[in-house]
């Protein structure tokens, strides 16, 4: 057994064990921290597959961004340290059964199928190639989805601000109406 195999199984165990703990612990702050470790494990798997750019994006966006956002929202909406109420045993059993049945179905399908890949020369996945292909407008380029995603991010940004403005205070309502006016212009 080589070192690479050992590292793979360690990363897989980290991802799955902290994933299970993230959905089963009753303290919400601990759930967020276990989610953080699970996301780090997934980033490690990307490193193991030698997709360094995706691993870096995963760490920057998920580990550094979304988890911090979730922890902030926990602090804003919860009494930290308080345990969540216990779920009904029947609901837990039924959910575990449903999840296990789905997993068994997917796995039987996957193991029955033989995947046939290409045997052409592998492309080197370095940042220069990724950047060139992402901004290319020729065949196989991703310039249009890139622009669409940038519009989506702008819309999400404006939407977040509009949703989170408190609507009962007159000053905020004024702000909201001016924002809407600006948008219509």
């Amino acid at each position, binding site marked *: 057994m080589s070192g690479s195999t050992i590292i793979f199984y360690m990363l897989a165990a980290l991802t799955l064990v902290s994933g299970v703990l993230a959905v089963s612990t009753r303290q919400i702050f601990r759930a967020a921290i276990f989610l953080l470790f699970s996301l780090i494990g997934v980033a490690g798997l990307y490193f193991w597959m030698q997709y360094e750019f995706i691993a870096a994006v995963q760490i920057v*966006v998920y580990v550094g961004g979304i988890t911090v956002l*979730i922890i902030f929202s926990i602090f804003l909406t919860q009494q930290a340290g308080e345990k969540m109420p216990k779920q009904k045993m029947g609901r837990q059993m039924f959910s575990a059964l449903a999840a296990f049945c789905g997993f068994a179905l997917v796995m039987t399908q996957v193991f029955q199928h033989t995947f046939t890949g290409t045997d052409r020369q592998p492309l080197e996945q370095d940042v220069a190639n990724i950047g060139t292909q992402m901004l290319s407008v020729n065949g196989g380029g991703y310039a249009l989805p890139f622009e669409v995603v940038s519009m989506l991010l702008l819309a999400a940004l404006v939407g977040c601000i509009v949703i989170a403005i408190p609507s009962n205070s007159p000053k905020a309502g004024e702000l909201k109406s001016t924002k809407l006016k600006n948008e219509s212009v």
Partner: protein
Amino acid sequence: MMQPGLYHILFISALLFFIGVYGFFTRRNLITILMSVELILNSVNLNFIAFNKYLWADKSDGLFFTIFIIAIAAAEAAVAIAIIINLYRSHHSIEVESAEEMKY
């Protein structure tokens, strides 16, 4: 043990997906439901990267799908948290049972 390959990655990502589904079914708090959705999205990303590496290594389509999914997931998480904070402001609770005005 064998050398890990495509099937190992698919096993891990399917397991991660159904861990997220289990959390989505059992949790009653909106933030923990959001965490389960993040786990599901991560398992999908892992699948795309594994298929790109082991089957179509001469292209990088799976890599671009993963990049766009990460961007959309970040936008989705931000909007969801804005909605959750607004809900907390009006209901003083983020349990799913407390938000049922649109239920009937």
